[in-house]
């Protein structure tokens, strides 16, 4: 016979208020790839942001007498290679220090890459969600997307340069002016794919039962989009973001090849890579370092995106 005990008088310990975001962080941390990516991204950002203060060699300074210096690790297998501890990564054909060019180039490439990518994602997601959710606006927005997709990029960028280069240069100075111009140029020509993909997913999501349920309790469209639709289209947005970063960095180098990018005394990773392709067999390190910098940054962002997506998905978190 069990004794029906009375509820005890000692109060139950109250559970601490649980911050959802700590859970997300915990889940993120358990994703090894994402953590590696985060550490690398932090490293490369610090390398490029703070590096120039610690390693204060002027990236633009020419030094013809010390041109074509090889990086120091080449001395390991080639005793007679021209190397110098003062130039750990070597110098280019005009004697400019490669390491400071990678740092300076990284500042510009990362800044352009992130800003252009965020701009493209914002525009693309906005157009995609509005178009997928509101049927009345769908046709017009999608035809506008078709229009922008059809425009040839080179004349479009030439027209933008023609119209905006001088006013921007006068208002913000040469470097910032051209930075804004390039970021805008890349941003407004790369949002279309994201918009179409997001729209497709939104159209599919809209017909799901939970959306129907939310609508039946009177959820206004604004909250519907932010609380229900957006979190579920995060996957393709993350992929777009990763691919968008790589595309932005590489497009910037293609632009400078056409004379539409930064002036030639502003190094960027893509430009260093492009300029070094001609001498690739003799000096492979000049393509290796910028190429590796771009690839590993993209890889890191990709893993972070993977980790974020897993962390934000409540099903994986085990709830």
């Amino acid at each position, binding site marked *: 016979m069990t004794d029906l005990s009375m509820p005890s008088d000692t109060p139950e310990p109250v559970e601490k208020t649980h911050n959802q975001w700590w859970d997300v962080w915990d889940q993120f941390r358990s994703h090894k790839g994402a953590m590696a990516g985060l550490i690398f991204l932090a490293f490369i950002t610090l390398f490029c942001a703070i590096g120039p203060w610690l390693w204060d060699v002027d990236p633009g300074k020419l030094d013809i007498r010390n041109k074509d210096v090889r990086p120091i690790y080449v001395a390991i297998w080639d005793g007679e290679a021209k190397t110098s501890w003062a130039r750990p990564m070597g110098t280019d054909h005009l004697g400019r220090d490669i390491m400071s060019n990678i740092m300076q180039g990284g500042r510009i490439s990362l800044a352009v890459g992130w800003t252009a990518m965020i701009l493209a994602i914002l525009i693309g997601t906005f157009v995609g969600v509005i178009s997928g959710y509101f049927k009345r606006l769908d046709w017009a927005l999608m035809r506008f997307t*078709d229009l922008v997709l059809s425009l*040839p990029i080179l004349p479009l960028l030439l027209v933008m340069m023609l119209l905006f280069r001088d006013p921007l240069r006068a208002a913000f100075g040469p470097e910032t002016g051209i930075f804004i111009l390039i970021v805008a140029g890349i941003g407004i020509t790369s949002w279309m794919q994201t918009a*179409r993909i997001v729209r*497709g997913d939104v159209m599919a999501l809209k017909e799901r039962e939970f959306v129907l349920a939310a609508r039946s309790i009177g959820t206004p469209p604004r909250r519907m989009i932010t609380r229900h639709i957006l979190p579920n289209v995060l996957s*393709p947005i993350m992929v777009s973001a990763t691919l968008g970063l790589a595309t932005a960095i590489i497009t910037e180098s293609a632009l400078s090849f056409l004379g539409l990018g930064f002036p030639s005394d502003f190094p960027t990773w*893509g430009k260093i890579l492009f300029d070094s392709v001609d001498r690739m067999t003799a000096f492979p390190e000049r393509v290796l370092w910028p*190429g590796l910098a771009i*690839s590993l940054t993209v890889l890191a962002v990709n893993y972070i995106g993977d980790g974020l*997506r897993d962390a934000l998905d409540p099903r994986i978190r085990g709830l």
Partner: protein
Amino acid sequence: MLTYTIRRLLLSIPTLIFIAFVIFMLLELAPGDPMSQMPLTIPPEVKEKMRLALGLGEPWWVRFPLWLKQFFIVEPQYWIDSAFGTNFADGAQRIISFQSRSPVFDTIAERIPQTLWVVGMSYVVGVAIALPIGIISAYKQYSVFDQAGTFVSMIGFSVPPFFSGVLVIVIFSVNLGWLPSIYDTTHEVVDWDTFKFQMQQMIMPVMVLALQTTAQVSRYMRASMLDNLGQDYVRTARAKGMTESVVVMRHVLRNSMIPVVTVIALGIPSIFGGAIITEQVFKVNGLGQLLIIALQGSDIPMVMTITFLLAVLIVLMNLIADILYGVLDPRIRYD
């Protein structure tokens, strides 16, 4: 669905005319002059006469309707004439390129074979490789296959073709001497040896291009599959006793295809105008190279015609993608 399709097709026509107008005005506004390719030793008066001979003396509201008329009326008349031996065109002037003074459509037709052989084939190969990679990567998430696939596709995507193309040329053409570095557009395939040579000259550009496509499509496939593999209906299907292959390939795959279909459909127009750098690196001389040469030389009729054809493809592909959404997910409604 049928009424929707017909309505979209009919509405495409004014859309395309509007797009053609915007492209034309953009080209008008853009700086650049067909005479920039002429040597500086030609005096300005001669250059001016050359411009007039090209028809640039007329204002834009004369030239744009002229182009429209030539594109929609005169050119089809020529095609019908050459196919059936009639004489509808009766000597009307076709769209003439500034650089070569020859009909634009003849040049475009010349380029189609190598464009389809190289760029088209690379697209097919890229998609064919990407889909299984995406599916398996999602199914075995975080396995060695997944990590390797991610690594290779990210490196492949972030390495630009002006570098990867030159790298493979240096390795396979210069150092090993296995493959030719310059594409021979006049090569005709008549027997096994010529076919082998065609494969040899195609393999490098196809691989370089396919890597870009594979990276994109496989990432979207994987992400979409991961979203769907965690859904409740998958658990239900397994509980019902269905085999893994049926669960994954019949249920999950179909629901994951929407973003993938978008990317594939959007990528098809890029076959015809997007592989500019790779075409230049390997001298494939397809439509991408034609477009960039025309752009750099400000050859307006050529640029206008090619970009308009691309616009038609884009509008068409988007329509097909939208129809496919409806097929893949019957809940999506347009009407």
